[in-house]
């Protein structure tokens, strides 16, 4: 089971939150929210549970989260120097970056020619997964709980027995001519 403890407000957590929020952005959880930039309406990857998912050892990245946060902040400092940005020192450097610069840095770290690309892709993959499939929760329970990603995507809820069935599924009429070279069993000739 994934750890159910709420994320402590550590440097590591807000750094990773800021990363996840760059992948699927969300609205601020409270006015003073520094990790979530507020670049989009509705919950994003953070509200969807990215930190819970990343902290779960089933992902294989949980052991590396300290390194992720440290490296990300190092990259952010270097990026800020290069771009001539002065960062607010009261939060970790990546968190201090404005959203468009977080985006530019993540684009750079995940680009095909970046030496650390596979490492960052993994973090992006699980951030996205928290949003698009709530991989740290049972899907039916996530939908019932109003999971922001599944809700925003419009994923239909299961039936009363917890299973999905779609009795209506077909337009039920011919919609194209068949290829002339089709065999009787329905394969290409």
């Amino acid at each position, binding site marked *: 089971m*994934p750890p159910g403890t709420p994320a402590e407000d550590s440097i590591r957590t807000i750094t990773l939150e800021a990363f996840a929020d*760059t*992948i*699927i*952005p969300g609205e601020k959880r409270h006015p003073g929210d520094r990790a979530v930039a507020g*670049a*989009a309406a509705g919950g994003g990857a953070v509200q969807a549970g990215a930190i819970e998912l990343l902290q*779960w*050892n*089933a*992902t294989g990245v949980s052991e590396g989260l300290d390194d992720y946060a440290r490296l990300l902040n190092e990259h952010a400092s270097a990026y800020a120097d290069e771009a001539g940005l002065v960062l607010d020192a009261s939060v970790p450097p990546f968190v201090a970056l404005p959203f468009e610069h977080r*985006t530019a840095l*993540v*684009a750079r770290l*995940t*680009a095909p020619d970046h030496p650390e690309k596979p490492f960052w*892709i*993994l973090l*992006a993959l699980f951030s*996205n*997964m928290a949003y*698009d*499939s*709530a*991989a740290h929760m*049972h*899907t*039916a329970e996530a939908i019932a709980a109003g999971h922001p*990603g599944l809700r*925003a*995507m*419009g*994923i*239909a809820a299961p039936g009363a027995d*917890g*299973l*999905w*069935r*779609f*009795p*209506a*599924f*077909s*337009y*039920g*009429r011919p*919609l*194209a*001519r*068949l*290829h*002339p*070279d*089709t*065999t009787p*069993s*329905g*394969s*290409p*000739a």
Partner: protein
Amino acid sequence: MTSTERTDVLVVGSGFGGAITAYHLAAGGAKVEILERGPWLTAKDFEQDFMLGSSYTRIFDFTVGEGMSILGGNCVGGGSVVYFAAMPRAPRFVFERQGGLGRRVWPASVSRDTLDPWYDRVAESIPITKQDWDDVTYAGGLWAAACDHSGRTANPVPAAVDRNRCTNCNWMMAGCKFDAKQSLLLNYLPAALAHGARIRPLHEVQRIERNHDGSYRVHYDLIDEEDYRIRSAGGAIDAKIVVLAAGAGATPVILQRSEAALGRMPHGVGRYFSGNGERLNTAVLNEDRVREVLGLTREGGLAYAANQIGKGPTVANWDRLDGSLPEFTRYSLEQLYFPPGLGTILAQVADAVGPSWFGVRKKEMLSRWQSWLIIFQMIEDANEGVFGPPPAAGNADRISQQMLGVGRLRYDPAETTLRAWAMADAEVKEILERDGLAEVTAWTNDVVGAYTVHPLSSCRIGDDPATSALDDRNELRGHPGIFVTDGSAVPTALTVNPAMTIAALAERAVPGIVRAARERGVEVTYGAPAPDGATSGRRGVAELVPTLMRK
């Protein structure tokens, strides 16, 4: 020292290549052991759930490579348990392909005509439905209507799905809870068990060595049932015949690792890998235009908004499966479904100025997920894939407890492959952007490289020893008694879904394996009926069998 276990035939992997050969050899009288690295789940265990650790991640495998990632099954039944069950036969021209060789790649003895009786055997064993328009899902219907609107044809695709049981829940990749999908768990494998074959799940084969008497010793590790990163010491089994069917992403790795003990491998082992030319496009439909232009409506006053509903692919456009067109310009365009979890990250927003696969606009695109339509291209690639030196164990360094690992495949797409993908991209765009129906983008290859659910050709049959690891009866060159019968053996990309062809070639390989087993003193005969006892398929191949059994 305890004595090593012995068997007549040891089969590695329980997907199409393993299940089919295991059934026939067991039914013919051989003692058969099947080693499968994944767990053994059945309908009652399959869960409609994306949570890590549910059946979806237990039975599914995602191996990241350099330039190409492979998705496949990891369970008893292999890919047949997670697949979408589209079962078309390969078009005639495929068997005449020259690839980059400048001469026919397939063995002279294999053509559509000589393979058809073997396809028939499979069709008799795995119930395959020729789908009707009534079976076609909204997504398939939409694709058909769009093809028609642009002057093209479209075909319902034959599928191994029992339409009376199917609920169109689209959870096929997590295993079918309703036993509607006719996976190998419902036909060849139970029949193999009934004839005394044994299946050992969570047994991962690592390497093979040769004994003094010419038999083989196969070494395996035991895999933890929950955390596949944890392995423990297994053992070894001696076998007179080894059938390798671990899938095209794993079979060559076992052979590479065995080279030190077995001696030099043919050049084709771990080379010529094909991803079946696969590439995905996502269309985001304009629902109003779907209603106005295509005249489609469904219950609730909706036009489409049905991405979640269905049973994987149901309709394909086959207009470019035309043998008179030049090689590398022929492909099929098939409607598909790919669930969240892995199925959204690679989709790109249209006309991106910033990042194309994450960020604010990607989130907007996701909010229209029910209006997505995924189109699957299968082009003719150039067998570009090469496996590097094997990892310490298995075919990947596992990252997550299940599913995700890093393998050793390198794939650098040839100019012809890139051109074919670009052609197919342009055609999908032309069909679906016509009259403002949709916005279409290709999945990015920048995140995990290209990707395939159809790994092929990494240990292929052929007539030329320089470019084929196997002879035309699937025996590994220079290593008599070792056969490869999975997707690795298929020589080239097929332009359609491959399972039917993999299965037909596995059926065709059986007489040659029986011959080799008999030479090694195993009392086994060829000629079992279909798993349910039907015999017309057997009659259909009767004339072909003597040649395949000749020395």
